[in-house]
């Protein structure tokens, strides 16, 4: 699975996710990627999110929207909301994976509970970050 989140000069956020699914899948299984709210979500009031991992767990936990809700209704910061969902809630479900997120104020979060996540980010005026493992 691949994905991207961004905030532009007008403060608008957007997210996109794309996947080839799981190796040897059948029955026309689909994961969380195309399901708005589970694997992909964007809202200018909170953040934009793209998820990756074992999709069934992301669907059950409604991961992307849950992060947005924690920010909107409970006033969590982006990082806190992402960690609450990925490192606590999702782990209880047994779900492996992670997410990337950005707020309209250009705060970025790259959170995962697996051993690694291919990831990169770039903010205006800053160096490009590229990472794979828990570095």
């Amino acid at each position, binding site marked *: 699975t691949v994905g991207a989140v961004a905030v532009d000069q007008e403060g*608008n956020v957007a997210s*996109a*996710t*794309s996947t080839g699914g799981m190796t040897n899948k059948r029955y026309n299984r689909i994961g969380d990627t*195309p399901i*708005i709210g589970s694997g992909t979500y964007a809202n*200018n009031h909170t953040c934009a999110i793209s998820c990756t991992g074992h999709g069934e767990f992301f669907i059950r936990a409604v991961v992307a929207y849950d992060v947005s809700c924690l920010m909107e209704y409970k006033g969590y910061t982006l990082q806190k909301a992402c960690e609450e969902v990925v490192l606590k809630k999702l782990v209880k479900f047994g779900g492996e994976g992670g997410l990337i997120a*950005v707020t309209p104020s250009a705060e970025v979060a790259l959170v995962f509970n697996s051993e690694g996540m291919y990831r990169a980010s770039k903010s205006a005026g800053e160096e490009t970050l590229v990472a*794979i493992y828990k570095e």
Partner: protein
Amino acid sequence: MHKTAIAIHGGAGTITQANLSPEQDKAYRAALKKAVEAGHQVLERGGSALDAVELAVVHLEDSPLFNAGRGSVFTKEGKHEMDASIMCGKTLEAGALAGVRSIKNPVKLARAIMEHSDHVMLSGYGAEEFALSYGLEFAPEAYFFDRYRYEQWSEVRDSDIFMLDHTAQRDEKFG
């Protein structure tokens, strides 16, 4: 003017340094850097967040290193089925698709569904028909073939095991 930012991912799982050779590590990092910087250039030029995420994902879809687009893994039938979605935070409009084959860049189809249909999510043949009507690019089966993906699939094709592309295979084979 707001500060711009973009982040991308190329999948998660049991990624350890033992799983990747130095050459593979270098290739992944280069592909990630290229995609994120392409997306950020859109933002720096005043482009929209939607354009930036679409372009970044297209770069990742075009790379055989990642499980999407060209690098999509094999299904039980030895085919490639792809899903994608896109969402705009300003309007809350969204476009999504599931189970398409032969679409070169599924994220472009998601964008087309968001902008040109009254629906949020299309699937299978219908989504491909929609793609055809909007002139989106198709690719032959050979475009999606990757030796490494094929070998991954070959190891589990005769079993009920399915797995994330970046996750090391568990010892769950049964006689």
